[in-house]
Structures are given as structure tokens and as C-alpha cells.
């Protein structure tokens, strides 16, 4: 099947998912109400739906749904580039330690209080600060080298340092509620996402995808290896640095809002390659589509499984993602010794 047809099919699934997923949550909302609410907000027609239903759909579920799509796209695209820059199929968006830095920052804000005058921005601010601090430290340690192995290993080291700091802060917590709140953040959640959270994240994720699209052929050449890519005239160090910095900004933005959502950035690029081949032009488009769909339904499940309670999204993506990842690896290496 041609890639265009596959993309159209996935696009159609995404649109259907967008509308139908809005029905699910602590209260089931019929599809007609969903459609009526959407058309009255988007088309300007005043169709009769209960006010409460409209509020749930428009003010709670829709921003959350759109943010889950942004997260799916952002994590998948960053995962794709991390696998390219390290030429390692096991790399994920968190390989450079950015999420660990963000976690330390967020847990510091939740348990130690951070800067209370920041109000609702307290946790996102400290998470972003932690993320940027960790990537600056990684870049300082990597220095002028462009070795992907060095990058991964220093990222792992940085992850270890920040994870230990996070655990230290949690261990020192005085109230159980703080620990529960920190753990919930660490495992990821879209709860509390509002319309105002969307614009900045959407711009950052869109610019990042545009960056990948513009540099798609350079990224293909980078897959030949650093030396070969340099032989072909590619500025390897510049491209690598741009990838690390832009990816970190995307991860810091997303993680500061929703916490650490695992496995999406690892498995979606693999699924995208299986679906559309290895060229970045295709893997980007399929990562965006598949990442969005998987994230929408993961969020629906996280809300619906123990309704009205919510399971952290990171638990669900890991639970679904890990077996899928094992299946992909088994399928891929079936004929290889």
C-alpha cells in the first residue's frame, strides 16, 4: 500500500478518534451532544445541549484531548530524532536526562514549595528549569565531541544524578499527600490541562516538526554515521547540537505540563518506520499520526478504566507500550541471528 493511502487512512482514524474519544470520561456523553457542542462553538450555531455537558466537553475534555495529541506528536518526534542522532533504536526522548532534570525540579516545587508566588506555574517553572539545567550540564560534559555513544552515556549519568536527587527530595517529604502528588506528576497526567496551556506548547511542537521536515534529507544522511555524513558535506556537529537543544525545549515544555509519559517516544518511531519506511519525511508524518492516535486512546483509557478515579497516563503507556515494543523487536529480529 502506498504511503499516501496509509497516511489518509490514519488521518481518518485520527479524526474519528478526535470526536469519539470526547464521549468517554467520568460521564459518558452521547455522540450527538459531542457533535452539537463542537458545532455550536466552531460553527456559531446555537444547538440545544445541557450547559454542564457543554462545559465538560469544551472546557475540560477538549483542551485535554488537544494537549494529549500535542504530547503524542512531540514525544514521538523527539524520540525519532534521538534515535537518529544516537543511531540507537533504544533511544527515547528522555535519553539525555532532560526528563530526570524536569522531575527533580517538579518534585522540588511540589514537596519543598518552590516559589509559591508563581501560583499554578510553580511546578511547570521548576520542571522547565530542571530540564534546561540537565541539558546544559550534558552539553558541557559532551564538549566538542560529536560521538553519539558519549552523548548517550553522559545522558545516562545525568539521569542517574537527577533521579537520585528526586528520590532524596521524596524521601524527605513530611506529608503523604505531597508524596502522592509528586508520584502522580512523575507518572504523567493530563488532568488540569486548560486552554491557556495549549498555545505555547502547540507553537513549540509545530516549529519542531517543521525543523524535522526542513532537515529531513540531512537527517537521512546523518543515519549513515557521523564520519560518512561529514564526508558528504553535512555539518554534523551543528545539526547534532540543534537537535539536542530543540528536542530539550520540546521535552521541557511537555514534561513541565504533564509529567513523564513513558514509552510513546520509544515505540512510535518504530511503528512509523514499519508503516512508512525509514526516510525522515515519512517517519515524521507517521510518527505524528500514530503518536496522536495512541495518545488519545491512552488518555481515554486512563480516565475510563477506574472512573471516576484516574490512572496516571505514564502507567498506561508503559503497560501498553512495553509489550508492543517487545513484539516489534521480536518481529524485526526474527530472521536475524
Amino acid at each position, binding site marked *: 500500500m502506498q504511503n499516501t493511502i496509509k497516511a489518509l487512512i490514519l488521518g481518518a482514524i485520527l479524526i474519528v478518534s478526535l470526536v469519539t474519544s470526547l464521549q468517554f470520561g467520568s460521564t459518558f456523553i452521547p455522540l450527538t451532544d459531542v457533535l452539537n457542542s463542537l458545532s455550536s462553538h466552531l460553527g456559531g450555531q446555537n444547538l440545544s445541549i445541557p450547559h454542564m455537558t457543554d462545559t465538560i466537553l469544551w472546557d475540560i475534555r477538549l483542551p485535554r484531548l488537544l494537549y494529549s495529541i500535542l504530547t503524542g506528536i512531540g514525544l514521538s518526534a523527539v524520540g525519532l530524532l534521538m*534515535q*537518529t542522532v544516537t*543511531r*540507537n*533504536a533504544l533511544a527515547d526522548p528522555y535519553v539525555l536526562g532532560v526528563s530526570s532534570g524536569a522531575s527533580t525540579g517538579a518534585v522540588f516545587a511540589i514537596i519543598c514549595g518552590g516559589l509559591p508566588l508563581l501560583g499554578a506555574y510553580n511546578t511547570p517553572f521548576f520542571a522547565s528549569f530542571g530540564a534546561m539545567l540537565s541539558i546544559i550540564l550534558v552539553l558541557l560534559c559532551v564538549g566538542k565531541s560529536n560521538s*553519539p555513544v558519549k552523548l548517550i552515556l553522559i545522558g545516562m549519568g545525568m539521569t542517574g544524578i537527577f533521579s537520585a536527587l528526586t528520590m532524596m527530595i521524596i524521601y524527605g517529604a513530611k506529608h503523604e499527600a505531597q508524596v502522592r502528588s509528586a508520584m502522580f506528576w512523575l507518572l504523567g497526567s493530563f488532568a488540569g490541562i486548560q486552554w491557556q496551556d495549549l498555545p505555547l506548547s502547540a507553537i513549540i511542537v509545530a516549529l519542531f516538526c517543521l525543523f524535522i521536515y*526542513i532537515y529531513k*534529507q540531512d537527517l*537521512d*544522511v546523518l*543515519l*549513515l*554515521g*557521523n*564520519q*560518512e555524513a*561529514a*564526508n*558528504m*558535506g*553535512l*555539518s554534523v556537529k551543528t545539526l547534532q547540537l540543534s537537535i539536542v537543544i530543540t528536542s530539550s525545549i520540546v521535552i521541557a515544555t511537555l514534561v513541565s505540563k504533564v509529567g513523564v509519559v513513558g514509552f510513546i517516544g520509544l515505540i512510535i518511531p518504530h511503528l512509523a*518506520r514499519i508503516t512508512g*519506511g*525509514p*526516510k525522515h519525511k515519512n517517519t515524521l508524518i507517521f510518527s505524528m499520526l500514530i503518536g496522536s492516535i495512541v495518545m488519545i486512546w491512552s488518555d481515554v483509557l486512563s480516565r475510563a478504566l477506574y472512573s471516576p478515579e484516574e490512572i496516571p497516563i505514564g502507567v498506561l503507556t508503559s503497560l501498553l507500550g512495553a509489550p508492543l515494543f517487545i513484539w516489534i523487536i521480536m518481529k524485526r529480529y526474527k530472521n*536475524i541471528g
Partner: protein
Amino acid sequence: MYTVNHLSFDYPTRSVLHDISVEFPTNKITAIIGPNGCGKSTLLKHLSKSIYSKGTITLNDEPLESIDSSRFAKFVSILSQMHDAMIDDFLVKDIVLMGRYPHKTRFGNYTRRDVAIAESYMEHIGISHLANEEVQHLSGGELQRAFIAKALTQEPTILLLDEPTNHLDLKYKLALMKELQTFKGTVIVVLHDIQLAATYCDNIVLMNKGRIVKTGSPQEVLTPELLEPVFEIPFTTKTEDGIYRIQY
């Protein structure tokens, strides 16, 4: 013309190249030969701008370090030994087409002409039937030929090849050397097979222990007197049907 002047290169624990000065003539095939660890590949890495060290290298009187990488790649194609590629899922035709990367405009796509050039070199090298195969399904020799096709697709005026006959069976070894003879430009090739160097190359650079032993035509360089102390085995030579033959 490539000119190397007083080039030296050391690893922290070992000296690899000692004050090397050598010229590589334009539009000729030059083979660099010598025993393992004599510095052949290190010299080639210097010529391909992968390493800089003490000494100067000029290309047509222009210092190599003043030629930026993207301009260099437009006229110099390098076949090196790759270590950290992640290209298993790529089709052979996509890899060969990447040879056009240095000629592509900054944000442009590969053109129909680029595709036609890649196809013609796949045909030349005899891998057209593998065009739609994934790289992971190729043998070592087939992969080597795909990379040779990619190097030629770059349409360079200078080819730098590090042991290009590795993994190739006899038929393709000879086909590659004949292809190099038809190449309109300068070829500098690191070779292990002395007979291939004698038969197909115009110029030989014999190296030993990081130094140049002798440069010149095959008949001038590949003599038992020069080869025996370098390779530490006995050699005999004779000319048969116009071909200079070396036996050991």
C-alpha cells in the same frame, strides 16, 4: 594535485605518520600499499579532511583546511569503512541517491536528474536488480558495491577509497578496478592486494612504519628489493603478456 608536506600524526601511545611528504598526480590512479598498521588509512583520513595534524596538505595549491566541507564534498568522494550507521531499513536506491546530497540545494529535494544519475551508476556497478532491496538483506559484497555506486553518484573529480575490494569476490574486484580505470579524475586507493595495484594503478605509494618507502610506477616500486623488507616475505616479479606480475 594533492600535495602532502611534512605530515606527522601521533596517537597518545604510538606514532603513526612520521614527517611524510608525497604528491598524488591528477587524473591517475594511485595505490597506497603497505603492511597492517603502516599508516595507509591514517594518511587517507588526512586527505579526506577527517583528521588534521602537524604538516600541510594542499589540493591544487589550496590548503585543505580552507576548503569548507560542503564544497569539498562536491568534488571529493570518500569510500570509508562505516561503523555507526543505522540504515538497515533503507532501500539500496535510496542509499545510492544520497550520493547526490552534496549537489542538492539547501532545502531542495533530489531532482529527476539526481535519480537518473543514481540509476545509471547502479547499472554501471551491476546492482540495478538490488535497487528495491533493504540494506539489511544484502551480503557484505553487495553492500560494498552499493556504497561504491553511491560514491560514484556523487560525480566527484577525486575518489578516495579505503580498501574498496574488501568483501568483493574476484569478479567484482576486477570489475571495480576496471571501473576505476574508466573514471575521469584522480583516484587514491588503499589496497591490500599488491597484484591489483600492479595491474590497474598508474602510481604506487609504498609505506612502512609510518614512512614513505618509495613512490613511482608499479615497475619502479613493486620490486623484490623494496617489497621484501616491508612485508618480510620473499617476492619474485616478471612481465607476462604486458602485465607486471608479482609472486610471493
